[in-house]
């Protein structure tokens, strides 16, 4: 069964290539262009991973990530950001994320990261595919 990923970014250009990069590797893609839409989608559906931008017009990305974590504690969360300064401080204070990529990032970077996170080898998984 195809793994499901939710891509959250207000930038069409970024969603566009991330979607195509992952789709060609068999991922099932859902997109949201703002934080509220992302949270609404998460209410009713299961995802293996979420790729979330940190700066969006409606909700601060940090807040979205915090709420996603509360809603789906075991889901993999990857943060993508264009602000380099974020790497020096915890991305979201008090919330652990599974990975992050600094924009601009290439298609193999996002593919590899998600593959690695969702195929953890010996570690037992809680979520079903």
């Amino acid at each position, binding site marked *: 069964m195809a793994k499901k990923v939710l891509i959250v970014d207000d930038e069409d*250009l970024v969603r566009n290539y991330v979607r195509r990069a992952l789709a060609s590797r068999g991922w099932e893609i859902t997109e949201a262009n703002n934080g509220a839409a992302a949270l609404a989608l998460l209410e009713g559906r299961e995802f293996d991973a979420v790729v979330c931008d940190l700066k969006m017009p409606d909700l601060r990305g940090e807040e979205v990530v915090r709420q996603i974590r509360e809603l789906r504690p075991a889901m993999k969360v990857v943060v*993508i*950001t264009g*602000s380099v*300064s974020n790497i020096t401080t915890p991305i979201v204070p008090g919330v652990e994320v599974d990975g992050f990529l600094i924009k601009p990032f*290439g*298609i193999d970077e996002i593919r590899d990261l998600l593959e690695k996170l969702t195929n953890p080898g010996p570690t037992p998984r809680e979520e079903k595919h």
Partner: protein
Amino acid sequence: MSAKANILIVDDEPQIAEMISATLLLHGYAVTVAYDGAQGVEKVSAEKFDLAVMDLQMPGMDGFTALGEMKKLDPEIEVIIATGHGTMGIAIQSMRKGAFDFISKPFDIKDLLKAVERALEKKKFNDIGRAIFSTIRPEEQLRVIIDSVTRILKAQESLLVLPDKDGKPRIAVSQGLENEAARASRLEYCARMLAQSDGSGKAMLPVDAPGADKRFSDIAGLSAVKFSLFLPLVEDNKPAGLIGINRLEENSPFNEDDLQRARIFGSLVNLALRNSSLYRQLQETQGQLIQAEKMSALGQLAGGLAHEINNPLSGILGLTQLVLENLDPASQNHADLKEIEKAVFRCKKIIVSLLSFSRQEKTRVEPVSVNEVIEETLTLCARQLELQRVKINRQFSPGLPLVNADFQQLMQVFLNLLTNARDAMPDGGELTIATNLLKDPAGRELLISSVSDTGAGIEPEILGRIFDPFFTTKPVGKGTGLGLSVCLGIISRHNGYIKAHSMPGAGATFTVTIPV
């Protein structure tokens, strides 16, 4: 024809006005007459006068009031009060109101002429003073000084001798020295006088016929000089230079008046030079502040822009790579898109450097050993330097105090300086890293570290720009032009400063000064 000076006579007695007017005209002055105070003031508002000779008791506006009004209209005008009611009280009162001199009627016309000459001479000095103080550009100021001194002391030649960086006297500016031989002999002459100057700034004894003086008789070509005067320049009570003033005509010795003029002029010059040196220091400090401001503004801008730029850049990179996946690797399109991909990575690198000094986070300050920072940095790049046949000299002073600094950021600074030094010596060379403790004039301890290379050096024209953001001499794609800007930003945040010294062909030295 031009008159010696433009003089206004204000007197309500026509005969007296006529008498003064006729005498002054006869002596080559241009003269205008007014018959009361109000008329006098009106003339001053309409025309530029060097001097007014004015009665005190006149119908309508009296002389005191007119004097005040004239000085308001033209602060540079000199005024001589001439009155028949000459008491000490009135004299003092006129001086307080800004009159230059006071003479009692009836007066000998010769005394008036003398007073007029004195007033005009004072005005000349005022004008020269203004000219000297009006510019702080050294070349211009020195030129004005030499031109004025030659004129005032009626000399045929004059020269200003200053020591160069190595303390060797050289001619900074001169007048009337026609050829190299003359320049050489006058320089040697002045250099010997300069060696005798004691730093008190007092005018030195004039020298007559230096060609026949045994102190100078070995200098060829000095016999043309008949009479000389010297004005020593002083800085911090030490001899700083010398103005030599020469008359070439026989029987034209400098007299007591000339010496007096020279003394006044000398103190004026010393004051002006001190003034402009202080002003330049101020400007330099201001320049550093502006530079720091510029960096901070740029940093904030960069921080805000990075996000905006990184989004589209991410799109360009991702889409390029998606297309690349579907292209024949041997095709031209594939090669072109690879170039685009490379260009994106270059942009990314630039933005990362830009952001490295835009970070708003606080510098994490702790007591740090600068020697340790440098050692740590060297472990990162010593291998690279050795590969390039660069010999590393460590001249670390032992037992230096710790400074309050951010270890990582200081490392970044030294890494930058060491990388630049390496790039300056592509064919090998020597890298010298030194640390020292110094005290500034206020007694504060400063830790100075310097990184010197033996590369090609930095051209003087670009030395002033190397700390500017995006200024680079490295090939396109090699340097971002931000390395030294980042260093400057970091060291400024540590309340220190960073400076570059270089002579083309003789390598470059960067000094980093951090307060202890």
